[in-house]
Structures are given as C-alpha cells and as structure tokens.
C-alpha cells in the first residue's frame, strides 16, 4: 500500500505535531508514503478568492505530478486540502474546455492533468484501503471510557457531489467508525459538520470565536472528554482560540482537540509525546489520564 | 382603518405590473397578497412571452390574427389588437427592467417558436420565463417601495351603493381581520386551477378574484373555456413547457408515430393547444397510449440545447420521473392548466362596477376566447396589468375616498367565527375540494357532453350544500391555513358552478369547449360569449356578441 503523499502546509506549519503523528500511524499500518516535495499549496480556498483558475491550475499540477510519479491516489492529512483538491478535480473532470486551458498552462513543465488521480484523506484510506480488521489488530491501548466528539468541519463533507459519497457512503460517518473502533464512545452534537470559524478569523474574530465556543462548549456540555478532527485548520481554531472562546462564553471549556491521527496513535499505544500532544494549547492531560498515560 | 388610493389584490405578474403603473401615476398604491409576491403562480410560466417586434420585420397584425384564430374566433378583436400592438413595447420595457432574455447571435433579443403561430415571436428566458419576469417585477416593486401586505387574504370586497370602495382582508400571520379602504380595487388573483384535480396549477390558484367579484355583481365570462395543456407530466401533473415542442420535440403514440400529422398536417406539434390536447386524448382513447399517456420525445434536440434552453423541465423530469430528456421520451398527458374566462372587463381592465378592475388570468377581456395561445398569457398580464393600473389610478386621483362604514369588517369576522364554530361532521375541505376537482376533470375536460355536464352541475350543487356545514378543525388564529383553504374553497365552488352553467349553455364545439354530442362549430348562433352573474338562486346566464374588427371567421385548421 503506497501513496503519493501531500502533507499540506499546516501540518508542517501551524500544526507541526500533525505531520509526525500521521507518519507514525501510517508506518504502523504499513502504509508507505512517497512525499510530494514538488507539490504546491492547494490554495485552501483563499487563493481561489483571488483567482479561481490559479487555484485549479495548481491543484491540477499537483495531481499531474502524482500521476508522473506513478500513483493514482494522493494521500492527504488535511480536510481542507482534500476538499479543495476534490473540488478542483470535479470542476476539471466536468469541463473539457476548461481542462484543456489548464493543461496548456501545465505544458511548460511537461505535465498533463488526466483526471486519473484522486486525492484521499488518511481517514478514508484507513477505512477503505487498510480495512478495519487490520487497524483493530494494532489497537493495543483501547480508549475505553473516553468520550470523543467528532468534528469533521466543512471541506471533508461539502460540497458532497465532489467527495465521492455516492460510491463511498461510509465516508460520511468515518470519524465515528474509527472512534468506535478504538474503543471510545462517540458524542454526537449538532456542530460536527459545521464551520470551525477559521476562515473568518482575520475578518471577524468575534464571529469566528463564537463558532469555536458553540462547538467546543456544546460537546463539552454533552460530556465529551475531547474532540477529534481530521482538519488541522479546524484544530488551529478549536484549540488555539478556545481560551478566547471560553472568555466569550464566560465559562471554562477546556476541551482537548485531537488530530485524528493522534487518536489512532494513542490507541496504538504511542506516547503522548511522540504524538506531539504537548504542543496543543488546550491541555490534553485529562485525556491522557483516561487512557492511562499519565 | 387602512386606506390607499389603489389596492391591488394579488402579486403575480398582472398585480405587480398594475401596482407599478398605479404608483407611477402618483397614486398611493398597495398590494394585498395571500403569499409573498415571488411565490405567485406566474412563476410557473415557462416558455415565453409573445410579441411582434416590428424592428425585425414582424407584424403585430400577424400576431393578432394568430391569436384570433387560436381563440377559435371567440376572442374580442378590439382587445386582441390592443394586446398585439402593445406587446413589443411591453417586452422592451421588461428587458429594460432587467429581465435576462435570451439573445441571438447579434446580441438582440432572441425568439423561439410557439404553438399556433407561423413565426417565431416568443421571447424567453430558458424555460423559466415566468420566474424571470416575476422576480424582476418584484425588484421594481422593491425599488419603487410599493407597500405590500404580504400574506393577507382578501375575504370580500367592500361594496357601497354599487361601488367598490375597498376590501376586507385577514392578516394570516395574526388572524386579524381588517378593512382597507380604496378608491380603486384591481383584482389580479390568477386562475382557478385548483377547482380541478389534477391541475398544473399551484395550490394557491383558487379563483379568489372571480369569487370576490361574482357576488359583488360582476359578470364571469367564457367560464366554460378551460385549457388543457398538452404536455403535463404523468403522475403529478407538473407542466412541461410548450417550448419543448417549440424547440422541435415530437409527440409520439405507443406505436412511435408522430400522430399530430393526422390532426394538424401543417403545424404538427405546434398546432394550438386545444387541438393538440384533443388529438392526444383521441389517441389515448383509441388505444394508442400507454397508461393514459403519450410521449414527448426530445432526444434529437441534443443534450446541450436541453441543458441550456430547457433546463428546468430537464430538472423536473429527473426529479419526478427519473428520466433524462436527452436519453428517453417522457410520458405526458393533457392536464388542466388555464381558464380563458374570468371577470369581464373592458380593454382598461374596468368592470361595469365603478371602482373595480381586473387583470391577468382572473380577468376576461377577452383576448383568449376559446383557446389561449401559448406565451400569450404573460403578455396578457403585463399589457392589461399596466392598463388597469393606469386606469385605476386615474379614477382614484380624481375623487375623494368614498364613505365606508367603521364596521366594514364585521360581517366577515362573524362569518369566520361561525365557520370555526362548526361541529365536526366528518367532512373536510380536502374531501369537498377533491370531489369538486374530480367532477370537473371528468365532465368538463377536453371532451364534454350534455349528460356529463348535467351530472357535474348537480354534483357541484351538492358540494355547495356540503360546504355550508363543512367544519374547519384547526381553530388557531396564527397562520391557520385550514381556515384560508376553507375560504378559498368557497370561491372555487362559485367558479365551478359557473363553469358548469356556461358549459351547458354553449350548444356547439369551439376552442377548448369540445362537445362530443355537438362536435361542430356553430358560427350562426354562437359567435358570442356566455356570461354568468350572481343571484341567490344560482348563476343568471346571458350572452353577449363577440367584437369583430377585421377577421371574419373561417374554418380553423393547423
């Protein structure tokens, strides 16, 4: 099982704990990764605000590079990367004229976008390619008694037409599936597929923080010990701005936010340190304690 | 008491066009509408709006003649001339307001062909022309800040000394009943489709204006003329635009034959609607249909044309039949769609009742006579909407408010209280309406005959009797839709009664009124309109001659 690997910017930038955690989990499960050093940023939807075509071209380029490397799948570890790349793919695959225009722009680098490469989040790779049985074998430290609130955010659930839900309906409950698989309990709450607020952080911090407050506060009120997300951008906001959210709410929240590979890693018996939990803004020790790591 | 110079009832195309015209004349104008303006059923008009634009070599007289012929010579020719002459300006005006009409290669307004006309003179916005126009007119209403009483249901006209001096209406949100005084009232409430079951019409199309005007003394004219649209979807009866045929779609029977060549060798699928619907019904009756349907075949038009020019019906076919129009013919059948008849008016929308005007489908000018041409209804709404708005404003601006009693709303208040007080006898609005709808659809449809119409008339009488005791089970004040439906049903039953009475009166076949027991047109005796006026004992039927200007009746073939 080998993939072209697109780590994205944030897993090495604002959330440097994600990259090694994901790598360790992959290694344990026998997933080989061929990192795409030449790939650029997906644009994260921001570049697309300035120029959509630019964003589509960069993503076409990334997928074309993967094809040249001999892969049909790019593994990503960021929902935003997943969503933006999938959306670009959807647009390109459904518009021959546009695809030709974009390919003309890639010609200089001798790249061709064919549509044969698909981006695929580690979350989906685990369920669809690795398989639940194989993962179960690696669960050495079940997270029994831990209540986890799944937080998908936006890009891995919308727009649904470009995310392959018709062929793979299980994608829509993938986080819950893995939460149960590692022996934890799912805390379902209204905000799990809503926006974390990150994209409007610089524009309207109050509204952005309000979203953080709603989601983390609701999950906490429902008894969650931690929240799990497949998106490092959501993590940045839910973790980094949780103190501000608590202040806005007028009461403490203190809900640890786990990158989903960290949850997998904990269940596989990896140490909190290996998984970079000490780097989080919200103290993760209460969860660590529950799984017997402190 | 509220008061406005001009009150327009209904906010479809006719209503909003009327209100804009009245407001632009300087009259204090308000619209009263039982639904938000953009929910109005004008939305559902798909194919386009007819106009002969002279700058591209078209001639309004050709359009007028096609309309006269389409009406089976029952349309009043003076009114048809007005409509055809003013059509071009009306379309250009809509374009200036912002309607996104389709363009030709030169960037000018493009046209498509429509039924009953030799020439392509139908201007369109894909297959959502009604929606496009309705939203633009509402944009203009917002721009001009015309007052809109949204979700207010008019329960009666205020009549004093034979003059219309306003309306009584219920605010659906609160259940409060209020009198609204006006110098002129314009009824623009659309047709009465829900008196039939099934119908292409929305659930709100309940003949309110006709039901308001009729007991106030106005005449309902040409009520027997009910249009069955040739292409409505099997099952739920959703409309499939005539534009499909305008763009070249075929009608096929179960043997795969383009059967229209038998009935209309020249115009084929683009013969007038009464002719096409009748042909389909004949095919089905003679055993060349499938499950009561024939087929509309668009496959040869190609995916691109379908997706750009007919995208809405493509969506509808996919949603409700799971059929992709580019791949498969779609089963269709004639379905009740439009009423040519309505409140009798002159070419300025005026009824014989001082202060009362009507425009759009609820009115009968009569420009459609025995059969309306496709894409003439949108034209009718904007031309006569504007004219009635201007006339109503002119009347209002030259006089003070008439006296209206402080207790104008009292009668309706007590009527509604007693309606809500009725004991549950097991009957319901839905049951009565369904019985009415199925009765009309059985006996006053594409084919009619004496016995059936008698049966229907009797059945409607019985339903009116049931209506007197029919309970309304929801008792609340806030958004009590059951109460609204009960009031609407009263309007529809009155309309149904006049539909039957008019049908029984016309002893010939003309336009949509095709009697199997009297299958020929009788120009000798029946170049006249049937009118119904209210009396305590039921409709008083009369006739008035059709107005001719220049086109003598000849045999009608397509």
């Amino acid at each position: 099982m080998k993939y072209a690997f697109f780590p994205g910017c944030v897993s090495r930038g604002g959330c440097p704990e994600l990259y090694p955690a994901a790598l360790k989990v992959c290694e344990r499960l026998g997933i080989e990764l061929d990192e795409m050093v030449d790939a650029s940023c997906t644009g994260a939807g921001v570049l697309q605000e300035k120029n959509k075509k630019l964003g589509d071209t960069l993503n076409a380029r990334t997928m074309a590079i993967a094809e040249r490397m001999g892969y049909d799948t790019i593994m990503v570890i960021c929902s935003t990367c997943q969503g933006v790349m999938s959306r670009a793919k959807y647009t390109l695959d459904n518009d021959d004229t546009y695809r030709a225009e974009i390919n003309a722009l890639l010609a200089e680098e001798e790249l061709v976008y064919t549509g044969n490469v698909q981006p695929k989040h580690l979350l989906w790779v685990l369920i669809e390619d690795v398989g639940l049985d194989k993962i179960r074998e690696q669960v050495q430290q079940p997270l029994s008694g831990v209540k986890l609130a799944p937080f998908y955010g936006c890009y891995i659930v919308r727009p649904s037409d470009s995310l392959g839900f018709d062929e793979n309906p299980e994608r829509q409950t993938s986080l819950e599936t893995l939460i149960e698989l590692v022996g934890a309990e799912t805390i379902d709450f209204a905000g799990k597929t809503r926006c974390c607020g990150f994209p409007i952080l610089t524009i309207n911090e109050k509204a952005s923080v309000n979203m953080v407050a709603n989601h983390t506060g609701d999950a906490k009120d429902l008894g969650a010990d931690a929240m799990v997300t497949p998106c490092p951008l959501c993590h940045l906001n839910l973790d980094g701005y949780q103190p501000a959210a608590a202040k806005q709410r007028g009461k403490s929240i203190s809900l640890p936010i786990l990158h989903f590979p960290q949850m997998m890693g904990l269940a596989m018996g990896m140490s909190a340190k290996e998984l970079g939990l000490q780097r989080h803004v919200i103290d993760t020790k209460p969860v660590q304690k529950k799984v017997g790591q402190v | 008491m509220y008061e406005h110079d001009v009150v327009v009832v209904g906010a479809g195309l006719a209503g909003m066009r009327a209100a804009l015209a009245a407001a632009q004349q300087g009259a204090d104008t308000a619209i009263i509408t039982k639904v938000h303006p953009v929910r109005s059923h004008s939305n559902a008009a798909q194919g386009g709006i007819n106009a002969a634009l002279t700058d591209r070599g078209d001639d309004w007289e050709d359009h007028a003649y096609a309309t006269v012929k389409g009406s089976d010579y029952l349309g009043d020719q003076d009114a048809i001339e007005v409509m055809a002459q003013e059509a071009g300006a009306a379309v250009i005006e809509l374009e200036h307001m912002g309607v996104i009409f389709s363009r030709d290669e030169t960037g000018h307004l493009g046209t498509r062909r429509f039924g009953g006309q030799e020439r392509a003179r139908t201007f369109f916005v894909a297959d959502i022309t009604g929606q496009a126009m309705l939203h633009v007119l509402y944009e203009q209403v917002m721009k001009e800040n015309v007052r809109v009483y949204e979700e207010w249901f008019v329960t009666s006209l205020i009549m004093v000394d034979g003059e219309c001096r306003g309306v009584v209406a219920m605010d659906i949100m609160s259940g409060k009943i209020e009198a609204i005084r006006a110098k002129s009232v314009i009824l623009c409430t659309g047709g009465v489709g829900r008196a039939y079951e099934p119908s292409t019409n929305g659930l709100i199309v309940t003949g309110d204006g006709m039901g308001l005007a009729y007991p106030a003394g106005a005449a309902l004219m040409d009520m027997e003329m009910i249009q069955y649209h040739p292409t409505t979807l099997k099952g739920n009866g959703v409309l499939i635009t005539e534009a499909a045929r305008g763009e070249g779609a075929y009608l096929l029977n179960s043997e795969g034959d383009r059967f229209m060549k038998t009935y209309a060798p020249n115009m084929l699928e683009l013969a007038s609607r009464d002719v096409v619907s009748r042909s389909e019904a004949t095919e089905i009756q003679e055993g060349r249909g499938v499950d009561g349907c024939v087929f509309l075949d668009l496959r040869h038009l190609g995916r691109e044309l379908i997706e750009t020019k007919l995208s809405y019906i493509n969506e509808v076919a996919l949603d409700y039949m799971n059929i992709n129009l580019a791949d498969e013919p779609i089963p269709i059948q004639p379905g009740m769609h439009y009423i040519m008849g309505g409140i009798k008016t002159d070419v300025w929308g005026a009824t014989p009742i001082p202060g009362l005007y009507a425009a759009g489908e609820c009115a009968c000018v009569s420009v459609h006579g025995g059969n309306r041409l496709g894409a003439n209804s949108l034209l009718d709404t904007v031309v006569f909407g504007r004219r009635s708005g201007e006339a109503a404003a002119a009347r209002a601006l030259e006089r003070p408010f008439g006296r209206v009693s402080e207790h104008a709303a009292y009668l309706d208040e007590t009527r509604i209280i007693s309606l809500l007080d009725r004991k549950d006898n097991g009957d319901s609005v839905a049951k009565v309406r369904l019985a009415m709808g199925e009765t009309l659809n059985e006996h006053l449809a594409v084919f009619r005959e004496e016995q059936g119409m008698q049966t229907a008339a009797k059945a409607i009488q019985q339903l009116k009797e049931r209506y007197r005791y029919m309970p309304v089970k929801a008792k609340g004040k806030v958004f009590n839709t059951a109460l609204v439906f009960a009031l609407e049903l009263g309007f529809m039953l009155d309309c149904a009664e006049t539909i039957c009475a008019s049908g029984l009166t016309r002893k010939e076949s003309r336009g949509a009124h095709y009697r199997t027991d009297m299958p020929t047109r009788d120009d000798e005796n029946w170049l006249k309109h049937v009118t119904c006026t209210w009396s305590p004992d039921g409709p008083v039927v009369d006739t008035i001659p059709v107005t001719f200007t220049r086109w003598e009746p000849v045999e009608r073939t397509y």
Partner: protein
Amino acid sequence: MQVKLAVKRFDPEREQDQSYVQDYTLDVPDHYTVLDALIQTREEVDESLAVRCSCRASICGSCAMRVNGHAGLGCKTKLLDSMDKDGVVQVEPMGNQPVVKDLVVDMSVFWNKIRAVKPYLQPEGPEPEREYVASNDSMLKLLQTMGCIMCGACVSDCTVLEVNENFLGPAALAKAYRFVGDPRDGATNQRFGELDEPGGMWDCTRCFECVEACPKGVAPMDQIMNLREEAAAAGFTSTIGARHAEIFADTVKHSGWLDELQLAVKTPGMFNIGAQLHNMPVGIRAFLRGKLPPIVHKAIPSVRFVRRIFEKIEED
C-alpha cells in the same frame, strides 16, 4: 410504503410546550416527496399543521424546510432518500429565521437583506430605445444566479448567520452578484463598495453549507467568491479579507506553499500595532507550545514552475 414524519411543531397560541415534536405515521406511494406527505398529513390527519407550499415543482420557493437537519425544498426531497432505517424522516422549520408556526418562518429579515443589496438593475445613462444589446453568453451566465427562487434554504443553513446576524448572507450576496455580472448594470463599483463593508462579501466563511442547501444550483458561495475575485480585480483591495487573499497568494507564488507567519503578520498590516498586540497572546501561547510555523520558510524545489503559472494567469 409506511413513513413516519417526526415534525417539529410550534404553536405560539399554546400556553405551554409551544415547541414539540409530533409523529405522523402515513401510508404513501413510494414516489412521494416530503411535501406530498406533509400535504397528506394536513388533509387527512391534522388540519392545523402549518406549512407554506404552492407549486410542488420547485419553482415557487415556498416550502423550504429542514429535512434530517439540512435545508431544502420539501417538494424536491424524496421520502425514499430521506427515511432512516426505521422509516423516520425528521422535519423541522428552516434555521436562522424565527418560527411563526410549525414549519412557517418569518422571512422579513431575509427580505430586508435582499433589499439591502439594491436588488434591481441600475443602468448607466438613459435607456436605449430598443433592448440593450448584450451577448447571449453574458446573459446565459446570469441564469445561474437568476435561478434563485428566494426560498431561504441557504440562509437557513448558513454557519455565519448563526453567529453574526449582521452578515448579509448567501441569498443577498448571490443576488448582488446577479447585478454585478449584468453588462447592463452601471453600479458595479458602488455595489462593490457597499459589499466591502463589514457584514458583506468578506464575512462568508466558505463552509459550502449554502451550496449544499440550494435546491436550484445557484451555489451562493461560489457567487460570493466571484464577488471577491471581481472586486479585488476592480481595485477593492483594502479590506482585511482582500489583503489576506493577496498575501496568501504572494507567499504561495514566492515559495510554492503557504507561509503562515507572513500571512498572520502582514494581513492586519505590519504597522497596525493594535491588531498585532491583539494577536500577540495567541502567538505567544502557540510559540511557547512549539506550535508556531517555521521562521525560515523554504521554497519547494520546482517553485519556478509555480511562479510561471502565476505569471501566465496574472497576465490574462
């Protein structure tokens, strides 16, 4: 088939328990939509159930509601696609708008926001005698935004409106783009200026909820992105949102990937001391945890190709 509608009801005239869920079990044909089932309920079971509806063919926009938590048109939502394994369908009124009764919401705020974008053509100069001449393509392009039926589904599910009632919202912004994109409209810059204000086009969080909810393919968020792109191209670049996109693009052009540090520092403006101080606690906390992006930002090896793509597209 049998279906159970779990309808969230609201009756302001009840003294207590104004809000409650009522189950209706019905026998219905397989092809029925949620609206068909609600109409059957209203006609045969419970006349007091309030729901707006008319055309039953997804054009009048009356029957937007939430089915299983997501907004859409009742008449376009098939029961078969909505039932859970027990045959239950959850039906609620739209979100972000006050409920009047049952599934009926008060849309006055919705319409006030539509009004706020001056939702009518504002031509430049006197009207031509005949029609405006415009290419068919330019008109066809507008059909997507014009196809909006003002049902409110996008507003119902907008995540920003949940936390910021000043946001114009997806429907109004899509409506604004309908005029910005119209070659006959002469007020584009004025519109951009107004949409540049707080609560305008930059307050969308790009969550795609509106794209998902819209039953007519208007894709409001895409139109908001079009507004941002075209406004920036027209020189409206001073808002934080526009600067953020600009700097984001610059850093990607420079190194091939995002330089978060640059983005964070430059977006509010290097000399915007207030904002920099305001952001400091978050920055310091992140720094102390080792969570800050790398100070030295290395370019990807093939960055020159990325730059070429930027140059070629920027030339157009």
